[in-house]
């Protein structure tokens, strides 16, 4: 009781005191200050070691205004010079969204009438309960109407140290809470910009905004220089987001770095217009974009390296082994013939990559949000891919010998059909490569899809060239063939062994189908596999039979394959629409990702790990098994309070595609570790191939 009375008395004294201070004449001869200030506190007492909010409240004379953190083309933000007791620390202001105040050719950003500017103060641990603490400082600001006046005033707050938890201040707490609620929240949408010589175009990937409901959009830059602050901002609201075009600012280097600022959007609701303010960071992209943008040359180099590594991926290696063994067998063949095979294979790879690139470019031009491996979002494609890989696996197992001529197990590598065979091996290698993402590839393709079609095509072709290169070089440079092993019975065994990664790939693809198309999809895929196995057996059975029997068996086998394909095509899409979006997103410990949830958690100061994955992404699944779900990593995450969000890209999802895009990526996996404590800190982008060590080190480093 007594304490409460004392507090009340302190408060009254404080209010009277600060009122008296405010009555003191401002310097520079001004008769009456244009702004009255007061230091508010959300607490009526201080708990040792706690952080609490105080605020500078400005009551501004009618017609006058003070300034935002970026005052615009003139003016100056208010500041406080603190004289705090030892051990106390004060943070920076957090800024409610400003108003626009146009003055002739200049634009300024500021506040009129009244504003509460909160800031956090942290008390030291060693405070004696019951003692009184004086938080003092000198506030200074510039206030303008037609003319500008610099003003300053001492501010002070005297608070007792609480015995237990701090009590809220009945006057300050609601004012500060209201001000903090109005402070812009981090944008839930990724943003980027392009700059031409005259304009800056800001793109905020806010899908699904209704154009007729948006009353106003304005971007307030956090710093001067990147955009012309007084220039009109031309907004267009499209289904995939908002673009703002504005005259470029005078500071040329400002568009080489990300542009920070506050986006204010006014939305017409049933009851009137509501204003929403978001902080956002727009990353430079495309022409005029600076340091962050990848050069074409670098993208090509990365693509080439990625293509080379693709050769070693479990989905590609067995397919290539067919070709490689042919080469071992025929190392003594005429160099010209081998060379032609190498070239035919390369052309096959490049042509297939051109088809993939063409499809990707065409679909993107049509406004689709897709990326590498987009084909795998279709259960039909996944089923058919499983059939193809299964057939190749059966061939390696020796159940059937498909196209003896091109696989090169028996007859000559030479011959017209042989070159066609090499061409189609190239195509097959490309098809087999689609589920795999090699290191370096993600960055290169992420770059490619944001580029004009020619650059995009070049990047894809560089990737293809990388894939084709090892085999091509072996055929082009006879000397290197000396390193090839001596042919022998061991080759059959290795081929049979290499069938198993393919069977594993098939099993995995069927599992992907189960995610996409449910039980019906699996049934169709499995039935198709049985039919293909039967067709293969039939084909092999009659290999040495007379012509007619061979012909009948071939027709029958072909019919079986057609039935299998038909099953895959018919069962896939119908079922796809009905199954729930993502079952894998609900797995243990993971929350489903949404930009809103991420923004919420970051605003709450939580560290967040974002795992952008897809059921059809092998690398993703491996990472989850060997790294993400291990006890050591789970333990590290738990200890740091990391919230784990999983974004499932198994099916096409424009929001996730945009998140990927904002990191210059166009495919999964993408792993982001957002540090705790604030929304301004950048996330760490982890490697595409994870290990326990990488995750634990990153957790230690970042958090």
């Amino acid at each position, binding site marked *: 009781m007594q304490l409460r009375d004392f507090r009340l008395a302190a408060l009254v004294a404080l209010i009277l005191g600060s009122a008296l201070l405010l009555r003191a004449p401002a310097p*520079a001869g001004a008769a009456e200050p244009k702004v009255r200030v007061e230091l508010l506190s959300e607490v009526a007492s201080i708990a040792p070691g706690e952080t609490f909010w105080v605020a500078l409240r400005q009551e501004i004379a*009618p*017609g006058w*205004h003070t300034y935002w953190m970026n005052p615009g*083309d*003139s*003016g*100056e933000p208010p500041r406080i010079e603190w004289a705090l007791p030892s051990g106390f620390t004060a943070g920076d202001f957090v800024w409610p969204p400003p*108003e626009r*105040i*146009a*003055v*002739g*050719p*200049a*634009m*300024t950003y500021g506040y*009129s009438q009244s504003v509460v500017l909160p800031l956090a103060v942290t008390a030291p641990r060693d405070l004696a309960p019951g003692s009184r603490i004086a938080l003092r400082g000198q506030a200074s600001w*510039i206030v*303008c*109407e*037609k*003319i*500008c*006046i*610099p003003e300053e005033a001492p501010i002070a707050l005297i608070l007792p140290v609480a015995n237990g938890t701090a009590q809220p201040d009945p006057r300050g707490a609601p004012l500060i809470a209201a001000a903090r609620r109005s402070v812009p929240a981090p944008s839930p949408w990724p943003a980027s910009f392009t700059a031409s010589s005259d304009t800056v175009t800001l793109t905020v990937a806010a899908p699904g905004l209704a154009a007729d409901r948006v009353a106003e959009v304005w971007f307030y830059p956090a710093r*001067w*220089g990147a955009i*012309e602050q*007084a*220039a*009109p901002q031309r907004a267009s609201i499209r289904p995939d987001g908002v673009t703002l075009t504005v*005259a470029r600012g*005078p*500071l*040329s280097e400002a568009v080489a770095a990300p542009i920070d600022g506050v986006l204010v959007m006014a939305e017409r609701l049933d009851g009137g217009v509501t204003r929403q303010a978001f902080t956002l960071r727009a990353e430079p992209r495309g022409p005029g974009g600076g340091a962050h943008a990848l050069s074409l040359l670098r993208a090509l180099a990365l693509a080439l390296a990625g293509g080379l590594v693709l050769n070693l991926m479990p989905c590609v290696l067995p397919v290539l082994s067919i070709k490689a063994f042919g080469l071992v067998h025929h190392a003594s063949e005429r160099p010209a013939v081998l060379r032609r095979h190498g070239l035919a294979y390369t052309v096959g790879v490049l042509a297939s990559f051109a088809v993939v690139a063409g499809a990707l470019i065409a679909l993107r031009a049509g406004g689709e949000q897709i990326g590498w491996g987009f084909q795998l979002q279709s259960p039909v494609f996944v089923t058919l891919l499983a059939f193809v890989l299964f057939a190749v696996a059966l061939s390696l197992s020796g159940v059937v010998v498909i196209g003896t001529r091109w696989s090169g197990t028996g007859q000559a590598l030479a011959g017209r059909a042989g070159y066609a065979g090499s061409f189609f091996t190239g195509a097959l290698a490309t098809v087999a490569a689609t589920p795999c993402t090699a290191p370096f590839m993600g960055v290169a393709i992420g770059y490619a899809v944001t580029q004009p079609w020619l650059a995009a095509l070049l990047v894809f072709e560089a990737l293809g060239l990388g894939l084709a290169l090892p085999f091509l070089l072996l055929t082009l440079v006879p000397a290197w063939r000396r390193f090839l092993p001596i042919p022998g019975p061991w080759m059959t065994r290795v081929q049979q062994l290499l069938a198993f990664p393919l069977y594993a790939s098939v099993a995995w693809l069927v599992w992907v189908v189960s995610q996409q198309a449910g039980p019906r999809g699996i049934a169709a895929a499995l039935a198709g596999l049985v039919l293909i196995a039967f067709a293969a057996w039939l084909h092999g059975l009659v290999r040495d039979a007379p012509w007619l029997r061979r012909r009948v068996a071939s027709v029958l086998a072909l019919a079986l394959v057609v039935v299998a394909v038909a099953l895959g095509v018919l069962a896939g899409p119908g079922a796809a629409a009905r199954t729930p979006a993502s079952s894998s997103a609900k797995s243990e410990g993971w929350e489903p990702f949404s930009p809103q949830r991420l923004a919420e958690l970051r605003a709450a100061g939580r560290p967040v790990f974002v795992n952008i994955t897809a059921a059809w992404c092998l690398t993703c699944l491996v990472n989850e098994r060997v790294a993400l779900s291990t006890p050591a990593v789970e333990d590290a995450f738990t200890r740091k309070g990391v919230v784990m969000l999983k974004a499932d890209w198994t099916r096409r999802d424009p929001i996730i595609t945009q998140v990927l895009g904002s990191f210059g990526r166009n495919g999964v996996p993408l792993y982001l570790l957002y540090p705790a404590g604030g929304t301004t800190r950048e996330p760490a982008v982890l490697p595409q191939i994870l290990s326990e060590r990488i995750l634990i080190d990153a957790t230690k480093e970042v958090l």
Partner: protein
Amino acid sequence: MIERALSRRTFLAGTGLAALGAPHILAAAPAWAATTAKVGTAAPAFTTGATTGKNVSLGDYKGQIVVLEWTNHDCPYVRKHYDTSNMQALQKEATGGGVIWLTLISSSPGTQGYVTPPQADELTATRQASPTAVLLDPTGVVGKMYGATNTPHMYIVDKTGMLVYAGAIDDRPTTRRSDVPGAQNYVREALQSVAAGQPVKTPVTRAYGCTVKYA
């Protein structure tokens, strides 16, 4: 919003015609127009009256380095630099080295900083300033051509007539006189570079100060 616009507008007009209708005020709000002055391109030509009564053109100083200083003697940011003699010292240094220094006043009649030619000359004398000439731009034509938004707002034109600097006088955007010593003076640095025939290291900065009191 309308109230504020109204009060500013009436002050700007300096007439006190409070009866002006709000819709009219909004329609009269200044439209943004791209300025023609851009660092790295030719400084736009202008002609305006000096306090001497003669007309002065930028073209009169072809082949010479020219500093343009927008000012408003009552602006606290301008006073920071004149009360500390910072601006005068820079003027003396520049003109002593053969640089042309033109002080421009774009305040419209009835607004802060507007002066008649004799008042302007008196200010020059009492403040012991040493510009080559003080130019009066009460219509704001020259100021808007250069995109001058602040007082002080500084520009440098090199001997070839190219605009090589636009922005603040220094890196301390405050009204505190104690910030003058120790500040990085962008204009002095730029003048040294131009005199040495070198490119200006910081050619564009954010000008700080009071808004120019255009009509």
